[in-house]
């Protein structure tokens, strides 16, 4: 089909790069006041990387303490603050920002838009985060311990018995929540309003779809978290008894509210990952995504179900058995849409002409290991079995399998996949493959033994353990150090690519890549599409794109 254009006038001469005044002040002003989606995307990705190394270092401290039984390296309370902050920072400071960063870079380009719908709001969503993390990290310097009750900060550990720093954590969470809400509003407005002429919702790239659904999840749950931590605050300082039975409240109410936020939150962490995988697998299989419509419906179904499964985190907390059973069934139901997705991904690569560049390697690792994490999730969903597994290392193994090779690997795959587009240079493929093999092998060395530890009864969040758990803990610790340090290769590779060390990237970058972002030069102009491109659909294909070179000058 012949590509046509809606508007013929060229505003390309407006399409200059960032305004940056000379000197250090100019540099700071450019990044602090920016309203550009690419700049803001870069900022998000940077803060995610910094937090990843920070929270990773905390994980290595935890693993060092667990290398041998007995209290050896760090004080038990400090160990508790490490598990708490590792979880909080990984969730709020790494996985959420990295996907918002990818959304910022990619969604306007994928939709053929000039920028995000509300660029100033976009800047605000980001610049709230450094302030929030400043408050969160300030808790390490407050007397009476940093938050030490786990990332779930259950009442009454965090209310009646919480250290003074708890209030600082509460306010940090308020600010992070604000950032997420504003970011989601912006993403929804962008997707609903900024699509290129001709692109219908059911023709959007999967990454955009998954983010649309994720943004709705965030909008519905972040206010609930904000309300919940507000009740914690009033319980702590203003004499309320929301989470105190002595006044008619209930500590279990805290768990209900937290997990009403917390369960959809885990889908917030994984749905954009699904989107990334749905972009990468077709490119390197040189086939279109199998069952696009079902992928969209399955994502929506997962999002809907995620609202009605939260009690599966509380089976042993004392909920009525009827409730436990209902939530067991709704939880197991999630396996159906997830199964559809896994099936479609496998069908996408089936009989494709596959090449194994680094993003594809990570995507395939995702496919196997995320599925493994899904299976242990099914085991945990079964009420009587959960009585055994609750609060053991089996749970730790489960959610690390879905989050590390799930969310983190897909984010890494996304960076390898899109960084040639962003920077105009290829990354170092050899180092990328080395990073892949080191991290994939060490990840399994770290987390696989945790299944056995948990089934044998080792509790989580305890700095000491019985002697018979020593071997597997030592294996896990060795794996964790290899895993942690393997990411320095990744960091080095990114820095070298950004500095322009790799060979020049073409516009399309990958032979099998489809979509608007690949019609722009690499690196793309500062404002992606000032003249909207035209979306052209070929007969019986949702995957066909206008691949004309019209944006070339």
């Amino acid at each position, binding site marked *: 089909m012949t590509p046509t254009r809606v508007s013929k006038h060229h505003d390309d001469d407006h399409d200059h790069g960032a305004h940056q005044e000379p000197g250090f002040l100019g540099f700071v002003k450019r990044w602090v006041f920016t*309203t550009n989606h690419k700049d803001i995307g870069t900022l998000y990705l940077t803060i995610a990387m910094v937090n990843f190394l920070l929270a990773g270092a905390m994980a290595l401290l935890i693993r060092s303490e667990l290398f041998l039984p007995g209290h050896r390296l760090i004080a038990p309370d400090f160990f508790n603050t490490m598990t708490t902050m590792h979880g909080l920072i990984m969730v709020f400071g790494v996985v959420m920002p990295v996907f918002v960063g990818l959304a910022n870079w990619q969604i306007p380009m994928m939709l053929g838009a000039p920028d995000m719908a509300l660029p100033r709001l976009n800047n605000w969503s980001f610049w709230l985060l450094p302030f929030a993390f400043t408050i969160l990290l300030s808790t390490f310097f407050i007397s009476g311990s940093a938050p030490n009750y786990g990332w779930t900060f259950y009442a009454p550990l965090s209310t009646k018995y919480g250290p003074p720093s708890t209030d600082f954590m509460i306010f940090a969470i308020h600010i992070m929540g604000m950032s997420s809400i504003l970011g989601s509003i912006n993403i929804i407005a962008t997707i609903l309003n900024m699509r290129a002429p001709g692109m219908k919702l059911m023709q959007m790239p999967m990454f955009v779809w998954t983010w649309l659904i994720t943004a709705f999840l965030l909008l519905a749950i972040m206010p609930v978290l904000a309300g919940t931590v507000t009740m914690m605050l009033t319980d702590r300082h203003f004499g309320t008894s929301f989470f105190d039975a002595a006044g*008619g409240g209930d500590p279990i109410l805290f768990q209900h509210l937290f997990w009403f936020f917390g369960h959809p939150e885990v889908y917030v962490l994984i749905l954009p990952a699904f989107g990334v995988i749905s972009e990468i697998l077709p490119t390197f299989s040189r086939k279109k995504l199998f069952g696009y419509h079902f992928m969209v419906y399955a994502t929506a179904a997962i999002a809907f179900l995620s609202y009605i499964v939260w009690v599966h985190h509380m089976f042993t907390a004392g909920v009525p058995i009827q409730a436990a059973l209902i939530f067991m069934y709704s939880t197991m139901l999630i396996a159906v849409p997830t199964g559809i997705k896994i099936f479609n991904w496998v069908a996408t690569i089936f009989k494709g002409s596959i090449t194994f560049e680094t993003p594809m390697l990570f995507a395939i690792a995702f496919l196997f290991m995320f599925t493994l994490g899904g299976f242990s999730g099914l085991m945990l969903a079964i009420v009587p079995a959960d009585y055994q597994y609750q609060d053991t290392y089996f749970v730790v193994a489960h959610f690390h399998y879905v989050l590390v090779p799930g969310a983190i690997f897909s984010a890494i795959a996304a960076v390898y996949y899109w960084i040639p587009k962003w920077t105009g240079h290829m990354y170092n493929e050899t180092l990328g493959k080395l990073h892949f093999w080191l991290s994939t092998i060490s990840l399994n060395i770290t987390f696989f033994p945790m299944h056995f530890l948990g089934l044998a009864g080792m509790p989580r969040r305890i700095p000491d353990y019985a002697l018979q758990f020593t071997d597997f803990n030592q294996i896990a610790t060795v794996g964790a150090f290899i895993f942690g340090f393997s990411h320095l290769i990744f960091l080095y590779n990114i820095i070298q690519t950004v500095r322009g060390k790799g060979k020049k990237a073409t516009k399309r970058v990958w032979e099998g890549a489809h979509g608007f972002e690949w019609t722009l030069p690499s690196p793309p102009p500062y404002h992606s599409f000032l003249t909207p491109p035209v979306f052209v659909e070929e007969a019986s294909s949702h995957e066909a794109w206008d691949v004309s070179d019209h944006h070339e000058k």
Partner: protein
Amino acid sequence: MTSHTKGSYYLPPPSKWPLVGSAGIFCLLFGLANWLHGNHFGTVLFGIGAMLIIYMIFGWFGTVIRENEAGLLNNEQVEKSYRWGMIWFIFSEVMFFSTFFGTLFYIRVYSVPWLGGEGIGDLTHVLLWPNFVAKWPLLATPNPNEFTAPHSVMNTWGVPALNTLILLTSGVTITIAHWGLLKKKRTQLAIAQLATILLGISFLIMQGVEYGEAYMEKGLRLDAGAYGNTFFMLTGFHGLHVTLGTIMLIVIFGRILKGHFTPAHHFAFEAVAWYWHFVDVVWLFLFIFVYWI
């Protein structure tokens, strides 16, 4: 769904307001946390934060209004972005209130009856507080030594019913103002807008009177057990939103007097009207579930 643009989408230049806002919120909340722990610089920081936020609100909204008057936002697609933004912001506010309504329902339907010995609560009842009788309103807490319950609660058909009437009327007056705007009857617009503001202020005054009565005469306080907790949390956050809504209405009134808004282009007015209706609907739920049944 996709709009075709005439002229390009307005991309604002770099702006300092988001950073001012972030720094303001940081100072406000970091100050508040320190204040709660008796660090005296906390109060100062809190004040600085509040001033920064007010400065940001003036500056940011001022910028948008100037851009709008300069015709930069007069683009169908830009306006749609603002619309979607406001709609989903209100949705997030709805979810915020849902948290407290959910808490109210949980406490009334589950935790109080369980503490009274029903369902899975039989052992808790026997072992902890065998004398506790589950009733709503909660006029005796399970542990009266720790949490003193109110001796009575607000009378539904007094001030609360009047406040319901006030807010519903204000919903009508803002619609009359909207009609005036659409039909270019500027006097009708201004008078009806002023009436809405006055109704909002009277609601707030009545609410203040009611709070005074609750604290002074009925012993109904924020810390008076689960009833007081949910009562003040829900009505308090609602009152805060009415206050914000009234301030927004006043800003719009000022802009009306300056001759802003045309029948075709008046999104700011509509956004505030939506917000006002949202506050109105929340009140209806409050009236039914907090005051009435």
